[in-house]
């Protein structure tokens, strides 16, 4: 049996680092889930806090448990242990009838949209209001407002089968917002869409987050989605949260190998031609030092001019990947320095030029 009293720090690891964020919205404590007949837990001791107004991403490989996790948040999956408190309501304590009512305060969108093929766009959006007993006039107003929000007024009488993937997801989003939820769950919402459509949908989600102050929890296996949209991220692997924090931090300075692979499979790869000539010690007087400058959003800027002012001679750029996340530079530069630089002294010569400096070794020959 898992203890129910969880130290605050396990839910809010970033409390100190993130003092400006809003009040807690979703608290997950010691959540576990095991499917009947399965030998291992699908989720193990998950502790997460999500603040109001946040866009919180949960990323992991397929089979990592992210889908189970998000489906526990509105009890499409019944957890086998732990507690989920949303807006002060312990949702595992709700009766079946209360759960139906409660779910109306939460929207959800899906990878495959899950629109009703026998209903038009308008009817699809209207139906949740209809079953909730909302009068026709109020329904019509709400549907018109949401059609405008997602930009599908012209398509309101079309059948879902006539729409493109992006349009279908817009209907899904409009439908998810009919009850003015404060929490929107996105289950791989862009995974069935092409990159351009994905960007448009992400922009729409961002707009909804900003204009309507809706907390968004999304799961994805695409790092780009987290990068473009989320403020905070948790990495899930084999049913456990292995890493979490603000996106810029996790993105720029991943602590776990799984995170690194998810972020960018080539993140740490040296070009093969360089890697084969790399040695720990100087082999030749013309061997050149290979350094990696890391930018992790902690204040350093990739200032090429400053770099040139600090060191002299030839500086060969081998690889560079700088991304601006939350207006903070993250990424790395791989540089081959002039042959007179030595591993022992270069760290002082290049002190504070980047957030992190790694000396990888010497590269000999061309």
């Amino acid at each position, binding site marked *: 049996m898992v203890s129910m009293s969880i130290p605050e720090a396990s839910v809010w690891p970033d409390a100190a680092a993130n003092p400006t964020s809003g009040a807690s919205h979703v608290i997950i404590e010691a959540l576990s889930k095991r499917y009947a007949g399965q030998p291992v837990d699908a989720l193990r001791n998950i502790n997460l806090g999500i603040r109001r107004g946040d866009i919180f991403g949960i990323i992991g490989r397929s089979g990592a448990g992210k889908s189970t996790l998000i489906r526990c948040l509105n009890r499409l999956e019944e957890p086998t242990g732990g507690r989920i408190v949303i807006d002060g309501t312990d949702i595992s304590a709700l009766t079946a009838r209360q759960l*139906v009512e409660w779910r109306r305060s939460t929207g959800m969108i899906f990878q495959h949209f899950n629109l009703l093929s*026998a209903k038009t766009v308008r009817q699809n959006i209207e139906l949740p209001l209809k079953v909730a007993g909302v009068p026709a006039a109020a329904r019509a107003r709400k549907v018109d407002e949401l059609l405008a929000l997602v930009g599908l007024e012209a398509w309101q009488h079309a059948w879902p089968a006539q729409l493109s993937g992006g349009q279908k997801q817009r209907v899904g989003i409009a439908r998810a917002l009919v009850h003015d939820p404060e929490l929107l*769950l996105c289950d791989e919402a862009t995974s069935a869409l092409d990159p351009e459509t994905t960007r448009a949908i992400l922009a729409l989600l961002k707009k909804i987050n900003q204009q309507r102050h809706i907390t968004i929890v999304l799961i994805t296996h695409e790092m780009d989605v987290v990068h473009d949209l989320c403020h905070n991220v948790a990495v899930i692997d084999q049913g456990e949260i292995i890493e979490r924090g603000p996106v810029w931090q996790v993105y720029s300075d991943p602590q776990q190998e799984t995170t690194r692979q998810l972020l960018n499979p080539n993140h740490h790869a040296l070009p093969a031609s360089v890697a084969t000539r790399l040695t720990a010690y100087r082999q030749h007087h013309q061997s050149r030092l290979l350094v990696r400058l890391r930018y992790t959003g902690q204040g350093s800027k990739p200032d090429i001019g400053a770099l040139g002012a600090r060191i002299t001679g030839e500086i060969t750029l081998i690889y560079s990947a700088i991304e601006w996340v939350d207006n903070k530079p993250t990424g790395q530069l791989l540089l081959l320095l002039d042959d007179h630089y030595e591993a022992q002294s270069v760290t002082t010569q290049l002190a504070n030029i980047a957030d992190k400096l790694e000396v990888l070794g010497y590269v000999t020959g061309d």
Partner: protein
Amino acid sequence: MSPAINRLWAALWDTLMMVGVSSALALALGLPMAVILVVSGRGDLFPSPLLNRGLGWVVNLFRSIPFLILMVALIPFTRWIVGTTYGVWAAVVPLTLAATPFFARIAEVSLREVDKGLTEAAQAMGFHRWHIIWHVLLPEARPGIVSGFTITLVTMINASAMAGAIGAGGLGDLAYRYGYQRFDMQVMVTVIVVLVVLVTLLQWCGDRLSRRLNHR
């Protein structure tokens, strides 16, 4: 009009009555049965293993008895229900009992084909379980249910011809008495032509309606 033509019209009317009434009853009874068979399954909306197995067993029982034997076996029951074992209304009883489980199984397949994701989405949006049956399962399965009902109608036209053999009247009875017992080829051929036209027409209408309802 000649007596032969009159006989044909009367027989056609009898057949349409038998098939129409028994199929309508099969629709009214079989569709709820199909819904129960689907939603009472394990892990579904209204899980009830006992009801699921019991109903499944009854459906299989009636489906496994050949219609001719079912008809004869039901004679006491038919007499108790309609007070006679002869004529159109007597035939409606066994036809309905054959058509209902037949249609229930076909409708069940259509209902099962509805994407589970739709049920899940509806749950996530705060639908009660009966909302899901009424607003999701039935409308989404409607094209398949219409096709299944067309199949049921055509099958019942076949079965009604057999019912004709034990005195129910209808086209089967006409073909049997005049065509088979009196070797009247003209009656036989006419009945066949009428049946072909009837079945073709029904199938065409059913297909059209199903297509109209299908927006997938």
